[in-house]
């Protein structure tokens, strides 16, 4: 059962696996945009090999928080730090999170991290790391936010996430193969709604009832 009903909006990501080349540009762009420390990747691309030589396939699959409509992480959170917004974003309130890691264990997508001490790329903080250090992220669960601040900006500016770069997640903006798309699936005219209407797609571990917000496109025409 979905934990969320009567949503006006639901932001989702649609990723065309035919386009993804595993370049990790989205991974690096996310780390740039969100200043995550070494070893913490809110977005990353899996490299999956199947078959036996010489009939082998290799697939690249961007993953991160699935912003589930029925998020297991939220259900196990003892402090209500993890919440589900009306627009479908799963959020973490760092002021409330106690870093218990229940959510880390509960997430079937391995999307959450907890760092207890500050880490820097070269051991000592660089100017760029100092400038963007957020102490409130220590000792709490962190994960992909769908670049929440940009989504919130859209509400103020009237721009459309997934269309206007300023209010679109950094990973989607960065994607050099145009594999990643973002938008409001509740809007039948959104880019993602049109794309998903025309393509074959699936969601990861859908059988778990998490109702995830990342769709993986396998085949079909583009909108």
């Amino acid at each position, binding site marked *: 059962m979905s934990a969320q009903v009567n949503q006006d909006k639901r932001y989702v990501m649609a990723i065309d696996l035919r386009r993804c080349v595993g370049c990790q540009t989205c991974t690096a762009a996310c780390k740039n945009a969100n200043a995550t420390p070494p070893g913490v990747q809110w977005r990353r691309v899996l490299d999956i090999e199947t*078959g036996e030589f010489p009939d082998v396939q*290799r697939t690249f699959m961007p993953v991160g928080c699935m912003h589930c409509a029925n998020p297991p992480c939220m259900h196990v959170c003892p402090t209500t730090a993890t919440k589900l917004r009306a627009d479908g974003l799963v959020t973490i309130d760092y002021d409330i999170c106690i870093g218990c890691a229940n959510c880390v264990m509960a997430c079937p997508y391995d999307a959450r991290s907890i760092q207890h001490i500050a880490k820097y790329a070269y051991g000592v903080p660089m100017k760029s790391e100092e400038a963007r250090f957020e102490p409130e992220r220590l000792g709490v669960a962190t994960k992909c936010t769908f670049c929440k601040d940009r989504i919130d900006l859209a509400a103020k500016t009237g721009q459309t996430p997934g269309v206007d770069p300023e209010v679109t997640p950094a990973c989607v903006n960065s994607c050099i193969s145009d594999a990643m798309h973002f938008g409001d699936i509740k809007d039948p005219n959104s880019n993602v709604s049109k794309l998903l209407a025309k393509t074959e797609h699936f969601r990861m571990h859908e059988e778990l009832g998490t109702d995830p917000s990342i769709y993986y496109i396998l085949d079909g025409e583009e909108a």
Partner: protein
Amino acid sequence: MSAADKASGAVTSAKSVPSFCYNCVSGPDFLRVKVENGIATEIGPNFDGDRIHPARGRPCVKAYGLVQKTYNPNRILTPMKRTNPKKGMKEDPGFTPISWDEALDTIAEKLKAIRAKGVIDEAGLPRIAASFGHGGTPSNYMGTLPAFLAAWGPVDYSFGSGQGVKCVHSEHLYGEFWHRAFTVSADTPHTRYNISFGANVEVTGGPTAVIRHADARIRGYKRVQVEPSLTITAACSAEWVPIRPKTDPAFMFALIHVLVREHGVEKLDIPFLRDRTASPYLLAPNGLYLRDPDTSKPLLFDEASGRVVAHDTPDVRPAVAGRHKVARAITVDADAARQEFADVEGRTAYQALVDHMERYTPEWASQICDVPADTIRRIANEYLEAASIGETIEIDGVTLPLRPVAVTLGKSVNNGWGAFECCWARTVLAMLVGALENPGGILGTTVRINKPQENRHMSVKPGDDGFMIQYFNPTGPNSWEAQPTTRNLHRTMVPIVGRNGGWSQALGPTQLAWMFQEETPEGWNWPKPTYPELWFVYRSNPAISFWETRRLAEAAAKFPFMVAFAYTVDETNYMADLLLPEATDLESNQLIRMGQTKYMEHFWDHIGVVLRQKAVEPQGEARDFSWIAAELARRSGLIDGYVAQLNRGISGVSPLKGETYDFALDAQSALDPDKVWDAVCKAATVTLSQGKECHGLDWFKEHGFYAIPQSRLGWYLTPTLEKQGLRYELPYQERLLRLGRELGNRLHENEIHWWDEQLTEYVGLPDWHDVPGRWERALVNAGGSLEEFPFWLLATKSMQYHSGGNAAIALMDEVSENLHGATGVIINDKTAEKLGIGENDRVEVRSHIGATYGRAALVKGVRPDTIVIIGQFDHWATPYIKDTERASLNTIAPMSVELTDATGSGADIVRVAIRRADKAAAA
């Protein structure tokens, strides 16, 4: 910013700065730098360019490492001098900070002393050498240094760092020769079928290739990746064919066999073969063109009149195939040796091809390539069908043939032994179906051996025998360069590399320069090569990126004086006498061209210029490269020449003074980089806009780039040849055959025989010559055995590290680890099991010259007889990466004349053994 703001982390100033990334040959790619409180914090796309830049304003993963590159605590941030006079891998250089004045004056004194002696030394070689890294990319970061070097005069670019011989070398040389294609690309926006022999475009083609191939996949094009391992590009292809290493020519010969012998000329593009190629030219029994006795013009048979006529006779219908009687003719061999013929049967060059390919059946190739014959035949048939001969496309009102098939080649396929055959076969496959420089087929993206670089069409001029003009290094008795003037012997040994200044020289056999510093071959009858008295190095680390890198490092240690523009200490500048910290990517200005003149898939719908912009102040004492160049010029007494070169436009885009404009610099203004780039910006925009617009540096700082539309008609060379009535010099290679014979004559007259094997590459039509066997024989000749070293070791690339010299960037290390094997030793899982090797085990990979160590990555997507190492690692000096253990092919692949082909290149392949490192230690 107030102390309170700083303490609170408040952002008091923020800006977004447009710039570009050219960290690999697939640039420039647009980007923006977010700068908060004067600190670069974030890289992102520049969406202002989404309709100009083919990749929609997006840079690849490497660009996102530029923030770390800027603030890396391991940077060299002040000039340093060496205090330990001993040089070597085990000698601490004792680098000590000095002032810029001391550093620059030291260099200037050296330069003046050298100049006083003469810029050429007693061996006839330049006293100054310079090495720049991957594929010309450093020129997009070195500001006005080219003006300084040009003002100096002769500089030896012989000491390569991998570029020149480990690049797609044979493709560069033969590509320019056959169709002005320094790099050869599929016309991906129009291609429907692509056979890719190891062309790893999803890794090395940059965002432009990535988006184009992604779009092509969605619209249903098919790419067949023929390669020993399941690389990223293979993974993204419709089909992967795991071919035995270095047997690609055999596969391609079989494709040609299917086309010309199983299908025949009627199924091919007869008008293209007839009018745009030398297929109709008649060959004498001696393998040379039959020529008119009076004019020496090649002859062909006119089907309309039934007569044999000169190739340029108007209103004829040349016969593509067949044998035809010729009453009277001559042939012209090496050194103008003429032979007369009467009543001789000549066969067309196409017919010679058909005859030649008879034995190269798919069944024959199957045994060599370890690929089923049915697969090869099916691919050939698919290629021919997809060529859709007869189809046309309209581009900007002009109707052109549409031949949407391409054969593309990757590194180690198109360099080293076998590369000539691959480049030839690929180009012939295009020729047979009319896909050469026509929409949908293969095309060249720029020229470097020919001029002008900014427009390859302008390099097309009539030359001999109805072909384009070529600028070979002369091989005649009186014109051959009998004593080398560069340490890599490029003018003496490699006619086809040409004589277009630095580019031709840098594309010479650069491993010879390294090897012959230590030991010259038997029969060397020139002066012993000297060390350069002063060696400049920038964005180049040959002690990591060349072959036999430990030996190379020790060779570099013997150079008397080395000046390195240094980002961090590295394995090459460890031998330096001076380290100079230049302002890096985000810290200085430079305007460069974009579109049309670049490599890989950089044929755009626009041409123009783009600014690399100083987003933040340089760290420490790092200085703008253009300031360093100007100071070197001023202090060494070369300022007038330097200014003259700047005004010629050498470090910019256009001359700074033209008929309708004058932004010329004087000696004073040339010292100020901002004034230099302001003038360059203005001259570029005035030229591009044909006088309609003029924008200076301030305009570019805001807008980032300036572009004008470019018709896609400019992508294809065939219409240009058609306008001039010229033919492609295909399929027969009479000119190369003659060149090789002349070169052989010169060498043998001088009792030089150590290049004899290379002379065998000069043939009219190539034969299979057991290409992998050359490496096997080299191993046996070195005292090893195939049983002892049973595997092939290959190298390939990752986008994160491709040619960016960014091994010191922690972010690249982190994200590359998401790809299996990206930093390890890739081995087939079943092979590993037999050897008792498990995932992530520390392994030793050993060749006959040494060993390298890393972690095993067990995969299913690699041939059982092949090991693959991605990237170029095994660092021992570069901070950060030296603390990891990364294997590298370069450590254990030998430099050798035996493994050098006629163009001067080798390949990244070596026979190896592999075992768990604990077993190695116990042995």
